[in-house]
């Protein structure tokens, strides 16, 4: 790609204009990135409210957040007691589906991919859920606090062997990934830095599920890390990492890929204003999110459909738009098949994302998942996500309006005209087709609605975020 973007323009607030009006496509785009897609009402209300108010309400979240937390908390406790990692996934997906503040869940997912910790090794649903809680608390808060606390987080301590790292025989696992994956990026430190930093992190143990510092196991000698010498402890290493010029760039670069684009390269020049803001605000992540979501670049064609939908966005998005009421378990299993098994990332690097989400197998599995969700005949979803019921709710008349309803709901009508023509053609001829003898007229109509919905979801455009 050869586009040159003015970094100053890129991060200035977007104002609707004749050249770039506030339209349904932008509402859909905003909800795909800052939430898990939109419902019909969210699209229509966002269109009326305009960008500022819509973004405000996404940042703030809707009413009933405390009640929702109270409602979901007891289940988390019993999942922890039963140490049921599979249910922990369902629980989080339930929160993604129905939280009044989906942006917080979405950014918690960002941090989960950043501090990618797998319960396959941790094997403790309580630890995993408490790490989730830590990331959610700081999801739009201070990255400094998050990084300090994650270094003493029980799930992380097990995952990267911090709890095994002792004076004289340090374990390098955490120290390396802290620099490579959590704060600086490869090439910004030496092997010597890793080994010295590992000494600083010795002495942390898990006691009754809590992180405890044992001075006897801590190496309190001098360490030389990233050019600074002292009797460093783990928290000093985190501080030293955050003093490196590469740290703000590394984090906003990852955020850029998550919220803005996987296609347009994140050059240092483009990221500079964001990185500067991040550094000056002492790593206030929420403020950077605010800037990005309101920006010109975010609402430009360069960001539009410039990511491949992650499985979570794909699956949660469909159920959300269909206003389905499902437990998280059906989705958790399906998303595992699509390659995004939450709380079980493939490695400490998290999911590679982007084009790696889609291959022959995952594409077919995605298409087959859309069928499972829309058919009403799949045991995982049943009638809880019935497109025919949605069409009835909004009083959509049969015929062309059905096609256009689903195209607007899922793709804001933005597809190749030939594809729409083919869908209309299918819809118009559907009444002529042979159906099983026991079907009522109503069955046949509902079948066409569900099929049209399924076909819309199989369009290539729907794979893009």
């Amino acid at each position: 790609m050869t586009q040159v973007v003015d970094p100053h323009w890129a991060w200035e607030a977007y104002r609707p204009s004749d050249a770039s009006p506030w339209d349904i496509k932008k509402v859909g785009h905003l909800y795909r990135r800052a939430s898990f897609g939109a419902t019909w009402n969210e699209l229509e209300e966002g269109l009326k409210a305009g960008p500022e108010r819509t973004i405000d309400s996404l940042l703030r979240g809707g009413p009933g957040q405390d009640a929702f937390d109270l409602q979901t908390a007891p289940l988390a406790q019993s999942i922890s007691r039963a140490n049921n990692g599979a249910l922990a996934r369902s629980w989080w997906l339930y929160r993604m589906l129905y939280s009044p503040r989906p942006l917080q869940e979405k950014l918690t997912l960002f941090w989960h991919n950043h501090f990618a910790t797998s319960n396959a090794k941790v094997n403790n649903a309580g630890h995993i859920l408490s790490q989730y809680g830590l990331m959610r608390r700081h999801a739009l808060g201070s990255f400094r606090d998050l990084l300090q606390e994650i270094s003493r987080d029980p799930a992380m301590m097990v995952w990267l062997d911090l709890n095994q790292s002792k004076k004289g025989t340090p374990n390098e696992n955490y120290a390396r990934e802290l620099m490579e994956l959590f704060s600086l990026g490869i090439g910004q430190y030496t092997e010597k830095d890793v080994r010295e930093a590992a000494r600083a992190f010795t002495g942390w143990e898990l006691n009754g599920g809590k992180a405890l510092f044992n001075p006897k196991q801590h190496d309190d000698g001098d360490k030389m890390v990233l050019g600074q010498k002292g009797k460093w402890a783990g928290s000093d290493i985190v501080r030293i990492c955050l003093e490196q010029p590469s740290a703000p760039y590394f984090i906003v670069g990852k955020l850029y890929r998550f919220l803005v684009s996987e296609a347009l390269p994140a050059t240092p020049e483009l990221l500079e204003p964001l990185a500067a803001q991040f550094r000056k605000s002492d790593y206030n992540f929420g403020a950077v999110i605010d800037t990005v979501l309101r920006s010109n670049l975010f609402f430009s064609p360069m960001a539009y459909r410039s990511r491949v939908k992650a499985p979570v966005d794909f699956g949660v998005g469909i159920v959300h738009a269909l206003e389905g009421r499902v437990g998280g378990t059906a989705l958790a299993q399906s998303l595992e098949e699509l390659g995004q098994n939450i709380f079980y990332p493939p490695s400490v690097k998290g999911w590679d994302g982007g084009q790696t989400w889609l291959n022959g197998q995952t594409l077919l599995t995605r298409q087959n998942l859309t069928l499972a969700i829309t058919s009403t005949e799949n045991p995982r979803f049943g009638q809880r996500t019935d497109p025919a019921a949605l069409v009835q709710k909004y009083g959509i008349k049969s015929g062309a309006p059905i096609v256009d309803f689903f195209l607007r709901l899922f793709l804001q009508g933005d597809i190749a005209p030939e594809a729409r023509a083919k869908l209309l053609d299918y819809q118009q001829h559907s009444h002529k087709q042979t159906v099983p003898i026991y079907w009522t007229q109503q069955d046949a109509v509902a079948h066409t609605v569900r099929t049209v919905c399924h076909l819309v979801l199989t369009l290539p455009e729907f794979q893009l975020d």
Partner: protein
Amino acid sequence: MIPARRDFLKSALATGGLVSWGLTVPAFLSRTAAAAPDAGKPGARETILVVVQLTGGNDGLNTVIPYKDPEYAKLRPTLKLPKEQVKKLNDHVGLHPAMGGLAGLLQDQALCVVQGVGYPNPNQSHFRSMDIWQAASTSETLSEGWIGKALRQLPAAGSFHITGKNEGAPLALAGAPVRVPSITTLEEFQLQTLAASSADKKQQRTLIEDAARMREGQPNLLDFVRRTAVNTYESSRRLQEIGKNYQPRSTYPNTPLASHLKLAAQLIDANLGARIFYVSIDGFDTHANQLNTHADLLRQISDAMTAFYKDMAARGHKERILMMTFSEFGRRAHENGSKGTDHGSAAPMLLVGGKVKAGVIGEHPSLTKLSMDNLVHHTDFRQVYATILDNWLGIKSKEVLGEYFKPVNIFRNA
């Protein structure tokens, strides 16, 4: 040999017909190729390569064990394997006790161990080092893989990434002229519809496939989705013609890796002209309490690869098969304080097949002359790749690797 198909492809490539559409299907799975002569018919002798990736950094020192070296026990106070249990390959080294299957293939002249493999200035990041191995390059930015590039010289060779559920397509396969299909199982590799009748089903499928084919001035990413879709729908249709009830001639253990290799065997047996397979197994990042975890992983590899080899041998494909293992790095010579090992560098590669030079190639890296506490390599992994490219796949390694690498003596009569 399959001259007809090759010639077709050559002419298609020459006119730009097949490739420049941008919506190509793997040639061996396309309708045209389906009509081409059978690669699997008697007389077909095309070589097959199965790459087995050990993800996480396999502890080479406890895979190929220098059981006679007194330093070994000193480096591994809690992780050392007892001398008498090691599966001896010669008077110096032997395989881990869990690898009896592979060690047994030595009698069949089918196991070759290349010791001390690595590359200069080894990187100890999992992800960077894995990229280096998969791209066969240490350049700063890596966007194409060594297999992907090799496939440009083998346009008719069928290739598959056989994958688990939480695993993306590897960099190693990037850069292929047509995307290499990833498959989990044949049953799951098909497009389902909810149709009122068979006519309805056909209409729906046609609509789904046509929508993927349509193009106008579109962004790159959408084009990528369309290519993947067209490629997949057509491959899927072709693969559904394969018999579902594959009867292996050996017993595969019930592990994911073994299932992957069994599917590879089935695809080889299905006469599609499949020649390249890529599979992986994760879990080798053993920083703590390594002993049992590592033994279990090595048992899985050994048993799965042995079953595959025996299945293939029983079907007369013994001399067409070459399996190659690799990992992004070995592990630190001295164990750490958590009964595990931190990231290291040099490690062995295992080669299995009917034409390998059986036995051990090269010395075990010295246990005393370490670099940053790590074993030092004497053989560059690209030397092994080059030998496989030149002498096994019959293509020019220099075009894949960018430079000449001295071959390693890994094949009989090579």
